[in-house]
């Protein structure tokens, strides 16, 4: 037990988060649980509004003011982020876990050049009296590892002067240079062109292997997840409906939502796309009592509407949150 | 109804905005019904009673009496009507005029008409407001109507600027482009597509401006340009009372406090409204 515990860098246990919206309560996350082992790439897939970004924010404990953590824990290297002292929290954010944002343009401050932002970020991550020269070298080294040529010029450039792909690489460099072990990637290539996105994703994969990092990759694109993760959690309306090895979940989907989602993705083979999933995402102010997917599920029975489904392990490592897992095809 | 509830919630989050609302509503109420509620309605206007001249504030005369023996409190409340009218009429004229100028310039951004209209606007904006108002008011006969005219002339450019800004940013929105592509004519685009999106900014500004227009009006009447005696006006009450300072301090202090409370009320109200409308979901 102790060995496997040491191996887990992040564990989210039964996380439930709500928001206070002008007096009413929006129950977004309802019992999210997943683990990330060291050197593992875990995916969080879901459509907009399912709570993926909220989950990432919870991991770093940067939820907005009106967020209420009803229950659950987020354990980073064994310690609960909601109970950490401010000092420990700061250390975790500087050298433990870092986030790569979807839009690199808004992740970088437009009025400072790369050098200023990079050195500032490193200053807090490295021991107090590290000389500026050493910080500079660490930055150059990091820029090199993300395949940016002409590093000195990049350091002196302002974000405006760099292309989308270069900015994203610079952000990745800043995040890993501090020595962080866990990277949270929030739709890292979505705002970029496809050929550039491909380069960025390959880069992240390569860095992960070279530096032995763990990655939590959030995306709404099933293709991206399939190519960049070992383990995946499918999210719907604040709940995890299916999780397991990426291969298993994608080729052996068991949850009705996963199946519906897979059928909606246009295939390169030209076999057409389905007509979509009837209905809409539930209103978080009055979420369904039972399974949150039940209003739209073609297989839903009485029990699905009234009681939350159990989390069943239908094959080793493959978990589904459904009463009828294994019966649907 | 749902929207109203939500908006009230946002507005009332700031307690001080509610204070502003109360002050502003009280002022408006008194402007309409004040003359039926004051202790000495006949003192508003020409009335003389030298036996009661220059009395200090007491329970009988809340703000004291002036040189003519008139109750200052009643006169202050009595002046509200014209004060409010000045504010309302000036804004009701300058806002639409400014809007039209700004929206046409903003819609045709980059073209000659934009440059012409906005440079005219700039010219008006660059003249110190008080000087412009005084210049106009002094040329014309000094009365309420003309001072309203003077203030209107220098007020519309601000609304032109505001509308210009909003229109320029909306210019590239897809629904505006669609309207053009479908063949909609300019009046439709201005009034049905752009105006609804400008309304919240314009209304907020109008509320905040109310206070400033009132001060401008008071300044004009202080300088002798506005409402003439014996009708009461806050500014002229202050100017005629200045030479009696500090002995008969109540001649000037109470009208000044009245102006302050009115302007404060509209400012706080305007702040609250901009919070409420500003965070409205798109």
């Amino acid at each position, binding site marked *: 037990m102790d060995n496997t515990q040491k191996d887990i860098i992040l564990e989210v246990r039964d996380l439930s988060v709500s928001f206070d919206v002008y007096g009413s309560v929006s129950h977004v996350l309802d019992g999210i649980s997943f683990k990330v082992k060291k050197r593992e790439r875990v995916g969080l897939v879901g459509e907009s509004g399912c709570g993926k970004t909220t989950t990432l924010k919870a991991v770093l404990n940067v939820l907005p003011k009106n967020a209420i953590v009803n229950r659950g824990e987020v354990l980073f290297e064994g310690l609960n982020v909601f109970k950490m002292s401010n000092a420990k929290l700061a250390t975790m954010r500087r050298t433990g876990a870092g986030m790569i944002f979807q839009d690199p343009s808004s992740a970088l401050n437009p009025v400072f050049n790369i050098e200023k932002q990079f050195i500032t970020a490193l200053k807090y991550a490295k021991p107090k009296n590290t000389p500026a020269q050493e910080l500079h070298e660490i930055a150059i080294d990091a820029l090199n590892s993300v395949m940016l040529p002409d590093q000195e010029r990049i350091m002196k450039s302002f974000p405006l002067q760099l292309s989308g792909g270069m900015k994203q690489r610079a952000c990745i460099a800043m995040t890993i240079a501090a020595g962080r072990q866990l990277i949270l990637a929030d739709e890292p290539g979505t705002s970029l062109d*496809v050929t550039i*996105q491909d380069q960025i994703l390959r880069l992240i994969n390569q860095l992960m292997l070279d530096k032995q990092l763990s990655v939590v990759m959030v995306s709404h694109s099933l293709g991206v997840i399939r190519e960049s993760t070992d383990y995946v959690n499918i999210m719907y309306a604040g709940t995890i409906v299916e999780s397991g090895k990426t291969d298993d979940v994608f080729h052996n989907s068991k949850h009705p939502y996963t199946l519906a*989602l897979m059928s909606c993705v246009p295939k390169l083979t030209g076999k057409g796309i389905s007509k979509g*999933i009837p209905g*809409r995402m539930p209103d978080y102010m009055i979420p369904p009592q039972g399974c949150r997917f039940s209003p739209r599920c073609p297989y839903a029975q009485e029990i699905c509407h009234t009681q939350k489904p159990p989390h069943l392990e239908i094959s080793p490592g493959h978990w589904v949150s459904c009463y009828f897992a294994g019966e649907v095809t | 109804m749902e929207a109203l509830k939500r908006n009230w919630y946002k507005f009332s989050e700031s307690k001080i905005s509610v204070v502003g609302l109360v002050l502003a509503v009280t002022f408006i109420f008194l402007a309409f019904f004040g003359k039926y509620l004051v202790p000495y309605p006949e003192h508003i206007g020409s009335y003389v009673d030298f036996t009661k001249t220059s009395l200090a504030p007491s329970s009988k005369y809340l703000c004291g009496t002036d040189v003519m023996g008139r109750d200052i409190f009643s006169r202050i409340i009595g002046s509200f009507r014209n004060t409010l009218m000045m504010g309302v009429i000036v804004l009701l004229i300058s806002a639409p005029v400014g809007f039209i100028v700004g929206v046409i310039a903003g819609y045709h951004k980059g073209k000659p008409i934009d440059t012409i209209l906005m440079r005219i606007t700039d010219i008006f904006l660059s003249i110190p407001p008080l000087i412009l108002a005084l210049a106009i008011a002094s040329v014309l006969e000094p009365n309420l109507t003309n001072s309203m005219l003077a203030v209107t002339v220098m007020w519309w450019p601000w609304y032109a600027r505001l509308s210009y800004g909003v229109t320029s940013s909306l210019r590239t929105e897809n629904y505006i482009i669609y309207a053009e592509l479908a063949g909609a004519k300019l009046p439709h685009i201005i009034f049905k597509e752009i105006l609804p999106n400008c*309304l919240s900014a314009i209304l907020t500004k109008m509320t905040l401006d109310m206070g400033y227009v009132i001060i401008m009006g008071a300044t004009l009447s202080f300088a002798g340009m506005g409402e003439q005696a014996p009708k009461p006006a806050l500014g002229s009450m202050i100017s005629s009372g200045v030479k009696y300072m500090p002995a008969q301090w109540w001649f000037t202090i109470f009208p000044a406090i009245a102006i302050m409370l009115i302007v404060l009320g509209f400012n706080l109200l305007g702040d609250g409204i901009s919070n409420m409308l500003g965070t409205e979901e798109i």
Partner: protein
Amino acid sequence: MVEKILDIKNLKKYFLLTNGQLVKAVDGVDLEIFEGETLGLVGESGSGKSTIAYVLVGMYEATDGDIIYKGDNIAKTGLRRTLKQKGEIQIIFQDPGSSLNSKRTVGKSLMLPLQIHHRISKSDMEKRARELLEWVGLPAEFMDKYPRTLGGGERQLVSGARALATNPSLMILDEPTSALDVSVQAKVISRLIDLQKELNLAYLFITHDLSLMRNVANRVAILYLGRLCEQAPTAEFFEKPLHPYTQMLLSSIPVATAEEEEMKPVKILSTGEIPSPVNVPLGCAFNTRCRDKMPICMKERPTMKEVSPGHFVCCHLFNDNTYTRIKAAAQAPAGELQPKQQ
């Protein structure tokens, strides 16, 4: 015999920036669209695909070239084209957030084109608007709703209904579902396809999502920096991509199943950045990133050649004398094409 409704010949659109630079957004494009078909236009940023859409719909005037729509040349008409022409060519924009005026109800937005194009009574307009909503599969209650209460997919469907109000023959769909979730996209796309069959509409479908294109278009054309690289019937485009850029793009797309993975051309690892349209490379625009670059590519711009019926490529590899050699290589199984070292 299917009628050709749109014929674009040598279309050019250049923009002059305030600092004097010339942006060659569209630089000599030839396209044809036939009645009832979907022509797909693929490209990344700077490819000029949206510019083509805006010229077609009248927002810009072409710098040069001809656009023959049902016999009339509308290349330089811009917004001065006839009302009828405005009604016949309609567009659905990418961003559901700004396609509808958030301060007007769905009903009002739908009735706008009706007001402009048809002189009918108010009650008839309302009836027609409800009919349009029904056509796109939305409930009639949406008439009184404001866009902010609608989801992204629903807003796009409303945009679609609005575009249909004038009975167009050609609909330009500029990335209509790029901002939508996959399940919502499926709903919108399937509705658009149904409508196309019911109303015999022609679509110009613009997207960067090749997997989507595969299932929607009859023919596909791919653009790079304002120039056409390749054009072919859909199946052939995906099974036998000839242009190096097409191959690079196809090998970059993330796919969700192993079956599709096998379809992709062997990893042409994409390299380099897309140059800015202000600085289009001399010769072939793709020469900065092409693994098959030859000396001629740096000097001369290639011309479009038809290498098999309906399949056009614009690349020096396919000039007549080198064609047979390359053709043999292109027809070999995918595994044999190895990426060259840069």
